[in-house]
Structure formats: C-alpha cells, structure tokens
C-alpha cells in the first residue's frame, strides 16, 4: 500500500467526494430551496426569504405533526430500549435454546416494512382483525379497541409495530453489552451473596451506558426518517393523528407541490436530528477523549 499512495488516495477521494456531492451538496440544495417559492418546475424557485419558515408557526397541521413525531420518538425509543434490555437480561441468564431465541428476536428486523405494515394493518383492523377477534373469542370483547381507526391509538399502533421490528436489534446489542461485563465483578458479587436481581440492578445494568448510546443513536436516526410503516399502516390518519414529519414533508412536497415549504420541513427534521444527536455524540467523544 505504501508504494501506491496515488491509487489509495484516489479511491478514498473519489468516495468522499461522491458523498460530499450527494449528501452535503443535497443538504445544501435543500436549504437553498427552503428559501424559495418552488413548485417543482425547474431546478429551484423564486427567492422569498424566510417565508417558508414563517409558515411553520401558522401551520396548525405542522404543529400536530411535530408533536406526533416527538411522541413517537419517546414511545419507540423507550419501548425498544426497555424490551431489548429485558430480553437481553433473560438471555444472559442462560436460558436453554438462547441461541435460537436470539435468531428469532432478529427475524422481525429482516422483514420488509411493507410486509410488516400489511400484517399489522390486518391485526389492528377493528372489525375483523385478529387482535379484536381473539379478544371477542375469549369473551373479553369489552377490551377490544378501535386501534388504527381511533385518533388516540393510531400513533401507538405505529409505535407498537416499530418496537416489534426493532427490539430484536436492541436485544442483540444489550446482550453483547451484558456479556462484556467482567466476570470477576460478578464472581465477587456472588461471593458477597448478591441475588440475581441485585447483580443486574447494581452491576449489569449500570454498565450498559455504551450499549444504550449505540442503540439510541441507531434508533434515533431511524425514527426521524420513518416513512413506510405509518404511510402504509395508517396513511397518517385518522386526520393527522399518526402523521409524522417525513410523511408531512412528502405530502406537502409531492401532493400539494409546495417544494419550497417541503424543503423547509426537511431543514426542520435536520435541526431536530442534530439537536438530539449532538448531546449523545458529545458524550461519546468526551469519553473517548478522556
């Protein structure tokens, strides 16, 4: 390799320049477009200053969609982390067939969102869906819910589907994290007579900071650009009850042809991503530095 620095350099540079053009260049284009009144004709529209940004504060739908996105973020991150940690801890107890279970936990992640959206839509269907049918079948019909047909539950339905799909991933990361806890610590705790729960409460779980950061980063990046599941499961409805920012961006841009306003919503998503990711990144970097 040392003999061929030119080849090495050109490979590296070509890749990095592609990403600069395709990622940072496009981000720049989006920001530029957000200052224009663009209807999708031509490469960009007429400059209108902060018009699209001013509209954020008068657009009631955007307000609802913004809070929906944060709600989904909290429910999804909380649910996935919790289920992942519990499943990983159970696996770590050394259940028989743990290897097979790990595989099973990961299967949902490999399923296409289109397929899982269709499956969950059938399950949540209030009239004929399997969840309500089962409840009615065992005489618990009073527990049957309107699920995706209700404004108060549709976003939760989307969150449930996502938690189902991603908790296997969280489990796997946490399982690796739990396995990497030094065995000496556990042994000394056992000698001191710590119960299983105490071992987890005081040794295993407090040492999962790095694993949690990895899980949170990946899930965060993912959930801020969700599209397929809510689009196919609820279409953002009823009303705007399960609409999240990427859906609204698409709707505004391609259905209503407000490309400029859509671009400004892209900027909003970008700002939220940075705002949420920076503290986590900062913590990681500070740790590495020390």
């Amino acid at each position, binding site marked *: 390799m040392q003999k061929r620095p030119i080849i090495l350099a*050109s490979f590296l540079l*070509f890749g990095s320049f592609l990403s600069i053009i395709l990622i940072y260049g496009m981000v720049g284009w989006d920001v530029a477009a957000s200052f224009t009144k663009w209807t999708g004709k031509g490469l960009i529209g007429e400059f209108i200053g902060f018009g699209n940004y001013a509209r954020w504060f008068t657009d009631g739908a955007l307000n609802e969609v913004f809070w929906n996105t944060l709600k989904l973020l909290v429910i999804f991150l909380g649910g996935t982390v919790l289920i992942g940690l519990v499943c990983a801890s159970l696996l770590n107890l050394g259940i028989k067939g743990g290897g097979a279970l790990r595989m099973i936990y990961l299967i949902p992640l490999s399923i296409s969102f289109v397929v899982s959206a269709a499956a969950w*839509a059938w399950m949540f269907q*209030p009239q004929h869906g399997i969840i309500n049918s089962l409840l009615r079948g065992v005489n618990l019909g009073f527990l049957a819910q309107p699920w995706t*047909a209700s404004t108060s539950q549709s976003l939760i339905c989307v969150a449930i589907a996502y938690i189902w799909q991603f908790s296997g991933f969280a489990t796997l990361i946490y399982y690796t994290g739990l396995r990497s806890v030094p065995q000496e610590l556990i042994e000394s705790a056992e000698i001191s007579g710590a119960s299983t729960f105490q071992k987890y409460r005081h040794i295993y779980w407090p040492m999962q900071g790095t694993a949690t950061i990895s899980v949170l980063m990946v899930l965060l990046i993912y959930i801020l650009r969700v599209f397929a599941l809510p689009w196919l499961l609820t279409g953002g409805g009823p009303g705007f*009850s399960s609409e999240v920012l990427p859906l609204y961006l698409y709707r505004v841009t*391609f259905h209503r042809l407000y490309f400029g306003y859509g671009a400004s919503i892209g900027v909003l998503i970008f700002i939220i991503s940075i705002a949420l990711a920076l503290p986590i990144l900062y913590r990681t970097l500070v740790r590495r530095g020390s």
Partner: protein
Amino acid sequence: MEEMKGVAPVAIAGIIIVLVVVAVGAWYIMQPTEEAGEEEEEEEEEEELARLIIYHFWTAAGEVEAIDAVLTGFATEVPEVEILQSPIAGGGGQVMQATLMSLLAAGQNPDTFQVMTGPGNIEAYSEYLAPIDDLWEEVGEYFPEGIKGLCTYEGHQYLIPINFHTVNDLWYNVDVLEDAGVDPDSIDTMEDFYDACEEIKDAGYIPLSIGSGQGQDFWLTLMFDVMLGGVEHGGAGYVNTLWTGEATPSDDDAIEEVLTIFKTLLDSGYVNSDFATLTWDQASAYVADGTAAFHLMGDWALGYFKGVGMTAEEDFDFIPWPGTKNLLYGHGDGFCLVDGAPHPETTMEWLEYLASVDAETLFNPIKGSLPPRTDAPITDAYSPIQKKLLSKSTDPETTVLGTPWTTTSPVYLSVMGKMMGAFVTHLDIDQGIEEYADGYAECF
C-alpha cells in the same frame, strides 16, 4: 508522519482532479437536454421506429382492460408504432404525479400521460405541456362545451378527454334493502335516507359503508362535495360559486348543513366503525358481501361490483344521493402532448385516435364511465346502469357539474381530504367550519 507528508501533495492533486471532473460532469448534466433529445430523435427517425411513451395510473381491475383495449385499437390503426406504457399505481394518480414531476424536471420527457380533466389539474403541469388547439379545431364540434372547458387552461386546449365519471351515485345491495324492507326509489330527501338507515340498522346491517383509511381521506371530501349539491342552501349555483373560490365558507349555511349530515350519520351509528381503516374498495366489499346496504362512490364502483361477479340491477343498483336527482357531478381523464415530446408526430396520431368514436366505445364500457363525445353510440356493451346514467346526462333537466377535482388544483384533494379526515374524528361543527374555511383559503 513521513508517509503522510508524501501523500499530502498527491491528495491535493487528487482533490483538484476530482473537483474538476465533478464540476465538468455537473455542468454537462445541467445543460438543457434538447440537443441530446434531438439527436436521439434523428437516430430513431433513421431507424424508422415510431414510438409512443405513455404514462397513466389505471392499474385496478377494469381499468387495465380498458386502457389495454384502447392501446390495442391504436396499434391496429397505426401498426408501425411501438407502444411503451408505464402504469403507475396509487393514490388516485398522486404517485404518478410525483414520478412525472421528477422525470419532466430532469428532461426525461414521455410523449403523453394521463391528466384528470380540469384547469387546475392542467395548471400543475402547464409548463411542460404543448397546446393542441389545432386538433380541437377539428374535433371540437363533437364534444359538449363543458367538456371542452375542462380541457382548457388560459385559453388553450391541452387535453383530449377519453371518459366522464359521475360521482353522486349512492350504490346499494338489492337483497339487503329488500330484507330490511326499504324501497330505494322512495328516498328523496335526507329525512327519507335517515329513516331508511334506521330500518336497515334495525335489520342488523350497516346502513352506509365508508372507506377513508390508509391515506384515502379524500373520499370524505368527495362525499362532502356531493352532499353540498343536495342540501337546502347548496345546489348547483352554490357549488359553482364555492369552487371558483368566490364563497365565504365560514358564513355559508351549506357547509354547516353538510357537516351536520356527517355528524348525524356517525353519531347515529349508521356508518361502519372501521371506516378510517378501509380503502374505498374494501368499503364497496361490505356492500358486495351483504354486510352493508349503501355506499356513496363514483361510478368506478360499478366496475368493482361487476368485477366481483354481481349483476347490475339484480344484485346491485344505484340512486342519486338524496337531493341531487337533477345533478350529474363528474370528472374525466384525458391525455396530453408533452412539450418536447420525443415522438410528437406519433403522439398527435394517438391524440387524434383518442378523440374518435372508436376509442371511446372501446374504453368506456369496460371502465364503467360515460363517453364524452355527444355522437358516441350507446351500444349493448354498456351496462344497464351506464345507460341510465347516459340518459340522465342528456336529459335537459340535468345540470352537469364538474367536481372540484376538475376545477381546483391538486392541493384541494390533499388539504380538504385531511380536513375531513380530522373532522370525522372530533365531529365538532364549529371547529369543522373553521377548519374548512382555513383549508378553503389555502386552496383558492
């Protein structure tokens, strides 16, 4: 570090080279594609290959067969043409619109594509279309003035219409109504309809089936618009004012009346509780399988009912929505000529063919729509229901109205759809009027 120093000048040189390559590449890509297009055209002319690149959004049962029949007819008429058709499914054409906007912006022009009739819909594409006024000079006399108006934008004609769909049709399951003891022909007013609903509900059926889920809130808007024609302060005159942007919805009683109809229907339990999760055809299925009695939907439902094996008039039939007996709401689809189409001559041949009686007679019986040409013969290929609608369309007492889908921009469907989708969840009339007025201000 020594090595790094060695690499640095190379890296700088590399950066410069890549920058130059990228800049030249970008400059080349950004060039107008006309030249490239002309070259391709010349090449193709040399090969004597006539092509037609066509986009449409007819992908459901009945729709595919209809467009295939017309394209086959065109291929028989002009045998040397190679047809490249790209059907794009989804969202009443909204998915195709997104695709086309990207293609057109990138200069990858098709020759022709499906556009819903109406100035608002033409406007969305206006910069990319070439007027076809000359062709309209030739064929104009065969089409009603109203239809011509729907193909016109800023004084020029851009579309050749192929069909006309009516939307104020209340479909019903004949057996269900018989079982519930309801005579559909006696339903003239909303009071009659509520009475019928009560009887149907008592007989154990869902009175009215709605499907506005999975992003299809716009069906609620379509129902809303149809109901506007039937309420006391509504009617054709009001509707025309409303859809030209001249109304003040916050003060208009008609809006309140229609929202009240929705509230009554939903509060009385006349609508399937899962309406917010179903698509329109899943709601039609409730009528088809005898779970529900009525379904308010455009006449493409006819194609659905026939498709699932029901016989018109025996198993299913329709009445006009209460209060809209003398109204015929509708919209159609047409095809355009793209400005800078790669094969303009073939495209003109296609549009000429489309304007013919032959094309309309091949297409409409299968699609379930009405032919826009006044001289198109009513053959036995049309179902009895289509014949009823056709005779209604020529009845002098009937007022033909374009739906707002034809008069407003595509924004209307999206904005008003979401507005109605939200209204049916809270059913607060005052809030609904306010939201309608806000949406209206955005659309007009």
